[in-house]
């Protein structure tokens, strides 16, 4: 169970509607960044990442370990007592937060490189299997290796960013501002990227890898670039997440919250469209973080089961959208070459796959 999700709710329900909205929008902005990263991988390139949470987690832990004070340094607990050596972790360099974020992105990118090297040239679903595995392994490493990330008790006291700008309750506005600003930066950068020639190659690979290969593109290398860049964006999301709450633990990084929820956001909003990814983050996020608010008002037999029903709905959303509306709410804008007379035949992923299905030629993955 993602205990952390429940913590989140406690955090966001305190202090009335405004504060809830501020907290909610901050969360959506962070998840929106992660969803944009997944959109680059899956929506634009067709790279199949089922371990989003692994990259998110690596970004969060890397940034936390670099910016925390040395584990033996004197810390002041909220009650004012001075303690030392309570948390058992590696690193603790007390670096500035932005350095931690950059390092978090770098570490997540490196993880993508390591996972991608053996799998990206193979059947597309091998990457999905490998990524879902790496997420489980990273959690078990965090839980069981001593002196790394303080095992299951997690890290706390992760420094805040720009906390000199506002104090107490008001700091949440700073957090929201930071998260939104980072979201906008990532969004604009990605829009530029996907509209560039590089982005066109990515879409070409997604539509028909063989054709892209025939056109002289090293498709494995392009897929790797997209996978690494997307992983870095997810790492950034994780880093912001860690510094937002100041505390992280392995349970913060469940598959459900960190991977499946992001997939639901992308499938609902519309993969291959960055605005769609953001809309999905908002809608699915509102459902996910909003349902606990009504839990109190529900009859008992339902109230206890809200979390499971919520999970069921996430699963159903993914299936229903894949089956009934694969393009999501906001479909991909069709960029059709002027040499193609019929946009429908050259446009979406589905049209090209349908054409390949109907033909008797080979249509499985290159390695199959």
């Amino acid at each position, binding site marked *: 169970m993602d205990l952390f999700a429940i913590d989140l709710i406690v955090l966001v329900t305190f202090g009335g509607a405004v504060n809830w909205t501020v907290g909610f929008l901050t969360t959506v902005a962070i998840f929106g960044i992660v969803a944009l990263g997944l959109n680059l991988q899956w929506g634009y390139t067709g790279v199949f990442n089922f371990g989003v949470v692994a990259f998110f987690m690596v970004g969060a832990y890397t940034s936390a370990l670099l910016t925390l004070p040395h584990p033996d340094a004197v810390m002041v607990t909220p009650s004012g007592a001075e303690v030392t050596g309570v948390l058992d972790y590696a690193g603790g360099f007390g670096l500035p937060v932005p350095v931690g974020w950059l390092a978090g992105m770098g570490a997540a990118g490196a993880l993508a490189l390591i996972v991608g090297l053996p799998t990206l040239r193979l059947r597309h679903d091998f990457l999905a299997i490998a990524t879902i595995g790496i997420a489980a392994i990273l959690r078990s490493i965090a839980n069981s290796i001593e002196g790394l990330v303080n095992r299951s008790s997690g890290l706390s006291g992760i420094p805040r960013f720009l906390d000199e700008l506002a104090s107490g309750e008001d700091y949440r506005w700073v957090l929201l501002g930071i998260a939104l600003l980072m979201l906008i930066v990532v969004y604009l950068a990605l829009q530029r990227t996907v509209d560039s020639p590089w982005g066109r190659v990515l879409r070409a690979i997604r539509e028909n890898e063989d054709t892209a290969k025939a056109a002289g593109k090293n498709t494995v290398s392009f897929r790797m670039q997209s996978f690494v860049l997307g992983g870095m964006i997810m790492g950034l999301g994780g880093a912001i997440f860690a510094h937002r709450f100041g505390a992280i633990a392995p349970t913060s990084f469940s598959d459900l919250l960190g991977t499946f929820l992001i997939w639901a956001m992308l499938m609902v909003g519309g993969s291959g469209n960055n605005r769609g990814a953001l809309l999905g983050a908002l809608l699915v996020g509102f459902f996910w973080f909003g349902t606990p608010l009504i839990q109190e008002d529900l009859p008992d037999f339902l109230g206890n089961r809200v979390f499971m029903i919520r999970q069921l709905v996430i699963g159903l959303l993914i299936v229903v959208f894949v089956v009934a509306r694969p393009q999501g709410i906001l479909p991909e804008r069709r960029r059709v070459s002027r040499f193609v007379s*019929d946009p*429908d*035949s050259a446009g979406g992923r589905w*049209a090209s796959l*349908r*054409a390949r299905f*109907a*033909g*008797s*030629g*080979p249509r499985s993955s290159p390695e199959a």
Partner: protein
Amino acid sequence: MTLLEARGISAGYGAAEIIHDVSLRVGDAEIVTIIGPNGAGKSTLLKTIFGLLRSSRGRITFRGSDVTRASAPKMVAAGAALVPQTDNVFPSLNVRENLQLGGYRRRRGTAVRLAEILRLFPDLGHRPAERAANLSGGQRQMLAIGRALMLDPVLLCLDEPTASLSPRMRSQIFERIRAINEQGVAILMVEQNAKEALRLSDRGYVLVAGRNALEQPGEQLLANPDVGRLFLGQETASA
């Protein structure tokens, strides 16, 4: 008597229509060839007739009943057989298993028919346990045709049966096709090697840009200067 008739067929992939308002007819025990330049929609036409693609307009009848919406297995059950141009054998299955699957719908007599087919194609008879993936191009084509004959079809549809084969293998295949036809099986084939195919054919159709361009007896098509210009010339240029 008319065995197969297609009237005003339009079909394609997704929203891209490839063939428009095409008609053709195959009589009992006839050999009919469809020729036309690359991309004219010849293979699309065969797939549509066989239910692998849905037609958006038009009507197809086979042995007097409407098969416009029939699936491929229904066509097979009705007595038609198709040899696709590529990927026409099961590579991981051996020769015997490929033929057995061709006779999947047979209730009895599979072994007898299998022996007959192996006699018809001696090349295959020598290596019944060979995996289809290890066969040469010509042998694979023979296996594909043999597989299609397992259910004693009355109509055999062939999609470019001699594509990418050596001239010697090509004439062997044409000779087999003639032998099959002499047993009373009607043949409908799409061919790039138009000259040899038309010489064999009772009638031929020329398909250009997804539309009927001409229909004439085979020998007449061969002599037709338009066809030479449209298609046969192109063939020599590309050969």
